[in-house]
């Protein structure tokens, strides 16, 4: 079926100026390997789709949100009660953030377990890890913005924990808070970080990440590479793209259902002078760290227990960041059971500690 005349005119106009043929050629030749692990390829696209939703809903929220301790809570209240479909936008923004963190973690560990970080995709992995760190910071900074009691005290605890980082901890806490305590100054800088600094960083690093993925194509599991078999492949467009679209639309339906049946709570406005309420807890993706710090004793040797915990998480993060350079076997194209079991340990740790955070007595 021929494209409508307007489309043809616009395409010709663009073609004369930016040579669309090259792009068309690239899309025509882009393929996705087909094997038993192909399903994991969808999670990168799903994360990107949810990020797109974050950007769109975030921009809409910006139109009404007022970033000050006096007005933040009331402005979110106005959004969810008075603004037409404001409740939907706010709920989708919050739920989508959580789904995005889930798909991002699945994407991260699927790449880890298929050792897709190995040469020549080290940079793709490193940029992905940086994007993961940015996403965590997105979540942390966004959590405070409604300025409700739970967010306020969770931020207080979170920035206190950041203060445990050896040597520079106090400085980090002061920079994050904009002073000694969590105040309106913290809110305005978290807002700035959330809507300007992090999106700017994300744009650059995500661009590089996607460029590398396009440049190098999809990684194939080692077992297939070793077998010398050339795996089957499907054209990215339209075969893979249409499947992606099915996933995205399903995610959209889930988001709509969550927003309609479980609207994201606004809670009670933060009162810095009130005592901390019971049940303060971070978002689920920080829960394993929070729970670990609760279990640590006050002192481990000469060091504070919390400091040791934070040091451990930093080292864990550094390990993951540098894994393509540490896993020398994978770099040579060999399977590495050690790194596989380390990965299993990390996932098990995160799952168990997070579950304990919600289920253990006093955990919730």
């Amino acid at each position, binding site marked *: 079926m021929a494209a409508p005349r307007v489309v043809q005119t616009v395409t010709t106009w663009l073609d004369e100026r930016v040579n669309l043929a090259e792009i068309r050629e690239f899309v025509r030749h882009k393929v996705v390997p087909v094997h038993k692990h192909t399903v994991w390829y969808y999670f990168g696209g799903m994360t990107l789709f949810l990020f797109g939703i974050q950007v769109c809903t975030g921009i809409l929220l910006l139109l009404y949100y007022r970033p000050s301790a006096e007005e933040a809570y009331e402005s979110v209240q106005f959004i969810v*009660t008075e603004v037409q479909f404001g409740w939907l936008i706010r709920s989708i923004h919050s739920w989508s953030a959580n789904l995005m963190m889930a798909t991002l973690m699945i994407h991260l560990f699927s790449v880890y377990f298929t050792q897709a970080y190995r040469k020549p995709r080290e940079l793709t992995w490193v940029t992905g890890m940086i994007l993961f760190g940015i996403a965590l910071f997105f979540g942390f900074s966004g959590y405070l913005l409604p300025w409700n009691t739970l967010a306020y005290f969770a931020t207080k605890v979170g920035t206190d924990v950041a203060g445990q980082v050896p040597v520079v901890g106090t400085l980090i806490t002061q920079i994050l808070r904009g002073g000694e305590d969590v105040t309106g100054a913290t809110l305005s800088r978290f807002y700035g970080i959330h809507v300007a600094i992090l999106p700017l960083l994300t744009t650059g690093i995500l661009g590089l990440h996607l460029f590398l993925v396009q440049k190098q194509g999809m990684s194939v599991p080692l077992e297939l590479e070793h077998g010398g078999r050339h795996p089957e492949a499907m054209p990215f467009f*339209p075969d893979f793209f249409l499947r992606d679209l099915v996933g995205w639309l399903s995610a959209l339906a889930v988001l*709509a259902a969550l927003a*309609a049946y479980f609207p994201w*709570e606004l809670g*009670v406005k933060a009162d810095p002078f009130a005592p901390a309420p019971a049940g303060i807890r971070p978002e689920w993706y920080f829960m394993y760290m929070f729970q670990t710090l609760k279990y640590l004793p006050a002192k481990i040797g000469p060091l504070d227990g919390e400091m040791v915990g934070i040091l451990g998480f930093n080292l864990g993060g550094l390990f993951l960041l540098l894994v393509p350079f540490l896993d020398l076997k994978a770099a040579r194209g060999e399977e590495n059971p050690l790194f596989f079991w380390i990965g299993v340990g990390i996932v098990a740790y995160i799952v168990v500690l997070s579950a304990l955070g919600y289920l253990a007595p006093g955990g919730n």
Partner: protein
Amino acid sequence: MPRRWRPLPISLLAVPFLFLADQVEAQKLPEENSCLQCHQGLGDPRVMSPAEKFPQDIHGSKGIFCQDCHGGDPASLDPQQAMSRAKKFVGKPRHQAIPALCGKCHSDADYMKRFNPTLRVDQVQEYLTSVHGKRLKQGDQKAATCISCHDVHRIRAIKDQQAWTYPVKVVDTCGRCHGDPKYMAGYKIPTDVVAKYKQSVHYEALTKKGDLSAPTCNVCHGNHGATPPGVGSVANVCGTCHSVPAEFFAKSPHQQAFASMGLAPCVTCHSNHDVVKTGDEMVGTTDKAVCVTCHQADSGGFRQAAAMRASLDGLRESLTRATAVLDQAEHAGMEISQARFELRGASDALLKARAAIHLADAAAIQKLTEEGKQITAVAHAKGLKALEDLLFRHRGLWVSVGIIVLVIVGLVLKIREIDQRRHQERAADRRST
């Protein structure tokens, strides 16, 4: 000429008001105090008791010892010398002399300023106006004096939780006499007041809720000037805390009516010692209502009572309805905090109407409750709107999901078609090769 300090016979008896310290812990006493040394070793509990109790007494912590009340010479180990008249030893003061003995210091503003410049010094003067003081003057040896309420030799500051005068302990302090029928025989006053008070809302607030401002005996009767409030002053006594109802009552037709019948305000409806928690059922024409005690059926007052009750019930029920709708919306996840905040205005209106019952003016009550009802109507409407929105969301969701599912089905069919085409292309390729 500055007054020269002489040892005063004080401490044996009690000091009416002791604001000197928060709490007196067992203190270090002078080692060479012969009074304490001898009394501790005499073997007779009656004479040993002062020495055993005194380490917890606030006076010792301020440098005031036995000789300051009893005279004598604590430096001498010879009992004849230590308790000689020459050394101004007075022994155990007479019961009637106790207020004056305590007052020698506690009524002396210059002296008391050394310890605390804000201390009152009129306690003895006030005591003399009390029933206790008057009876003592008449020679009643059972009349309470300073030590009856403040203890003796172990006098504590009133802020000390172990003091007999600490708010939660006052009722038992007064009850030692006023709750003892044998002791009070002959005075012709009831001795069930302590038991009754312990059933009251005031006692509950004081002991269970820990509200130390809740009234106990001395708050209504006075402490040093303790007297039963007369019929004419009851409203003023209750009004010191319940000022709004007292003000309304003063403007009501009941003020004049009660006075002419010799009925005390407040307590006629609420009782005195066993004041229980009030409720709307106290108003109206049912059996539980206090109005029907005086107002007979079909009288003007009876109709007013019925109308007042109807107004209260109307507002309370509309408040309950509005709250229920908001609760339902909130449980469904809707944001209704603003409506809930506004609904507080209706709760306030109900509170005001309940206080205004003391005006005994049905029209005034109706005006107040109508204001409250307007607020509940707005909140109720907001709750219903939230529930409607919720329904709209759910319907909208299913419409959206339906559209999405249709698109997904279309996409899946398209994917199948493409897959089949690819399969056929590959089969054709294989055949051609």
